[in-house]
């Protein structure tokens, strides 16, 4: 006759070991209802925050609280960035060694060309200033002389397919406002889309929602800079009968109509045309631009704060 306390293990494995009696679990006291209630409360709070944040992304009590929170977190982010910087620099150094020699030759040739071009441009700029003075030409802030550059570090890189953005270490305390242009030493980077108290979110040129009015410096053809494939940009809305050449420089167009002032002043370098194409079915030229700024490896940028405001008639 089988013993009354036999277990399943005995029957299956023929082992003499008996399963220990279940302990009185403390978790029994924590019912499933409590567990689900905690989840529900957290989800509801998150949804509430999301709703408020979505409805007023750049203002309101929640944004102010978030801005203060971001200010409090800033030292930690700066510290982490500084810790990582030597490693990044080391990696960049090693990777750049492979192409250093060929690039040196290329840049020496470019430097010669640019020196000659700079002399011509300086003469033209002087003449332009004289003519504007004669005409009492009225204009908005001009880049770069009418802007104060607030140099700052990049402290965070919220990457991913949803947004091309980064966080910089200056905010409204330093004069940064919504749509403040952000540049690097090479060219235009983007604009401020969420200014906080001491940090701000910058939306890059490569963001799908970004559109910057731009023009070809040589042929004066205008278009819209939008994001392209593989980290490049395209000059969109250029009619087929317009002329854009490979190698042309593209700069910001600036304000054309005073009723609709542009966020960017005229003349901030954006990039260089790397290809111009067309097709029978497309309405516009396909102008591909290589951005001047290294948008995927920015350590520091400058926020352009206007020092001169347009005088209204």
């Amino acid at each position, binding site marked *: 006759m089988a013993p009354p306390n036999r277990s399943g293990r005995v029957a299956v494995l023929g082992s003499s070991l008996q399963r220990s009696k279940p302990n009185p679990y403390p978790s029994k006291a924590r019912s499933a209802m409590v567990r689900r209630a905690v*989840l529900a409360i957290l989800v509801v709070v998150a949804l509430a925050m999301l709703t408020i944040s979505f409805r007023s992304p750049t203002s309101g009590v929640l944004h102010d609280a978030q801005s203060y929170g971001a200010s409090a977190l800033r030292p930690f982010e700066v510290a982490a960035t500084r810790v990582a910087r030597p490693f990044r620099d080391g990696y960049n150094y090693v990777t750049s060694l492979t192409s250093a020699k060929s690039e040196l030759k290329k840049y020496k040739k470019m430097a010669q060309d640019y020196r000659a071009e700079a002399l011509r441009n300086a003469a033209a700029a002087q003449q332009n200033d004289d003519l504007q003075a004669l005409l009492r030409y009225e204009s908005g802030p001009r880049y770069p002389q009418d802007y104060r550059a607030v140099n700052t570090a990049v402290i965070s890189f919220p990457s991913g397919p949803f947004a091309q953005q980064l966080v910089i270490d200056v905010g409204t305390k330093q004069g940064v406002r919504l749509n403040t242009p952000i540049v690097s030493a090479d060219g235009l980077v983007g604009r401020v889309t969420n200014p906080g108290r001491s940090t701000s979110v910058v939306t890059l040129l490569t963001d799908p929602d970004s559109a910057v009015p731009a023009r070809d410096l040589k042929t004066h053809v205008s278009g819209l800079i939008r994001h392209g494939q593989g980290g490049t940009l395209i000059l969109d809305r250029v009619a087929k009968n317009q002329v854009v050449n490979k190698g042309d420089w593209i700069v910001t167009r600036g304000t054309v109509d005073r009723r609709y002032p542009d966020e960017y002043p005229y003349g901030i370098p954006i990039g260089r045309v790397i290809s111009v194409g067309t097709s029978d079915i497309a309405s516009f030229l396909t102008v591909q631009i290589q951005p001047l700024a290294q948008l995927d*490896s920015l350590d520091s940028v400058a926020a352009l704060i206007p020092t001169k405001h347009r005088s209204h008639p």
Partner: protein
Amino acid sequence: MTLADGLKAAALLFVAAIVQVSIFSQVDILGGVPQLVLVVLVAVSLLRGSVAGATAGFFAGLVVDTATLGQLGLTSLVLTVSGYCIGRYGETTGRDRAHAPYLSVAVVTFLFAFGVLIVHFMLGERAPAGAVMRGVWPTVVLNLILTGPAYALVRRLLRPRERADYATEVQLLG
């Protein structure tokens, strides 16, 4: 979960979130971005259960959203649900399994990516499903690489719970 455990978990997730937004978010390998905060959350959830997982996810998301001045609540929402699900798995069938952290990280990386995608879609924002699909595979691989050391560190700081603390609805035989 004791107060000391809670503080340790909070500190771990805080550091992970800061490292994530400051360093790891700019590491792009074949379109994938390692998500340290997700890996640490999985470790905490597996070791401390669903309630702790949900709370930890909410806290980690809040830190990430605040640090990046992003939409407050978005990351919290997805991480809260992720932490809860992984916590339940750890409380029930996943306990004592050596492969549980790796399986959890792989699954939760997909869930997180598609969760964020769905929330963006629901908000009427751009939801590039193709880009998410392309990026999620290398991200899974990178997260799996991080899982071993991250789980070992978290396990060292948060000792595994006593068997008596586990849920009783599911019991392992054998």
